[in-house]
């Protein structure tokens, strides 16, 4: 599987957030997106996840089974919010997402009990999600990545609120995913502990925004 982005740009309101971003990711590639706050990392990831329309450019998949339509259908998106319900237990949350999302062609997800063990918190799956600490919530949101198989993982600041041990655990999860031929795109300020990654440095568009300010 190969994910190609060609000449992507996106706008928020009137301002161009980034312009002409292109990359090619093959199976087992990881792309680490870095840059200062406000440089458009999250916006880029939302474009890649199909949640925002790019102003120009396109995103496409090659060498993949023909039944796959949009790239977003075979992607996991882990944003700033965990997409878990506070009122439901962790196990209920995970098994809901497993059944709702289903597996993409080419792999199978693991059972929710195995997934919580993989993030190192096997004993608290029976608790309501709202009872957990911020770090535990983030780890459970990562468990969501492996209950339903998706070849592409799009991760926005995945290791925020995590301690050092959880960082390593997460790096192992990502490595295992890459080892199976998956693709990972992560925006982060901290090193993820991966070797052999591609880097994308976002610089932002202060000058463009400034021009716009003068025009208006």
């Amino acid at each position, binding site marked *: 599987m190969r994910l190609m982005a060609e000449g992507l740009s996106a706008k928020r309101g009137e301002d161009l957030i980034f312009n002409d971003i292109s990359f090619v990711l093959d199976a087992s590639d990881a792309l680490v997106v870095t840059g200062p706050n406000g440089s458009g990392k999250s916006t880029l990831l939302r474009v890649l*996840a*199909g*949640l925002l329309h790019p102003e120009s450019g396109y995103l496409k998949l090659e060498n993949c089974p023909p039944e796959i339509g949009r790239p977003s259908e075979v992607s996991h998106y882990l944003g700033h919010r965990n997409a*878990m319900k*506070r*009122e439901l237990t962790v196990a209920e949350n995970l098994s809901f997402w497993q059944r*709702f*999302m289903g597996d993409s062609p080419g792999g199978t997800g693991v059972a929710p009990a195995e997934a919580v063990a993989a993030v190192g918190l096997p004993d608290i799956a029976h608790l309501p999600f709202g009872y957990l600490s911020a770090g535990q919530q983030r780890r459970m949101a990562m468990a969501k990545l492996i209950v339903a198989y998706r070849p592409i993982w799009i991760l926005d600041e995945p290791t925020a609120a995590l301690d050092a041990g959880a960082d390593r655990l997460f790096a192992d999860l990502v490595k295992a995913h890459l080892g199976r031929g998956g693709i990972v795109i992560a925006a982060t300020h901290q090193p993820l502990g991966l070797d052999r990654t591609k880097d994308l440095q976002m610089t932002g568009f202060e000058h463009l925004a400034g021009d716009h300010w003068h025009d208006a």
Partner: protein
Amino acid sequence: MIALFFRDLKLSIRAGGGAMIGVLFFMTVVAVIPFGVGPDLNLLSRIGPAILWIGALLASLLGLDRLFQAERDDGSLDLMLMQETPLLLTVFVKCAAHWAATGLPLVFASPLLGLFMNMSELAIGATMMTLLIGTPAITFIGAVGAAVAVSLPRGGLLVSILILPLAIPVLIFGVSAVYAAIEDPAPFLPPLMILTAITLFFAVIGPVAAAAALRHASD
């Protein structure tokens, strides 16, 4: 999809879910009417069906604004938008779960409240039946309003105002079907059929419009 239905049902029954809010509001509104109108039993039984329907309409507007907003606040809506499953199917199932949690209790509460209003057995039965047929339409119309106002932090009242004009036909035909059942010359079937048609119509249009609004609201 079945997983989504039961998850939403579970969420609305758990603490803070709001399944009981609607039915409690319905009971409160209808229960105070006899005190306000006074003990004129004939008058109460005459206005009973209309009061029950108005109460049910207002009660089903409560909580509609959270239908998609709760999903958006915790990021679940993003994942629902990304899936291969057509969004309108997701919206339809969410509406069905919302109705089962908030609309169905209204139908079951209506006989008790009918007694408050001194309604005959026939009138109570007809009200239950029309509520059963008509309240899903209110949920489907409401889903459109909820989807349009999904990114507004305090969109509750806006949703009600947006959808109330569209829900008026449901009220008119619901009430007129009940009166047709208890007053002899008027035929019962035509208003009931129109009510059914309205529900079926909005069951199709509502999810399509709501899904389109959700796609545009994503940012």
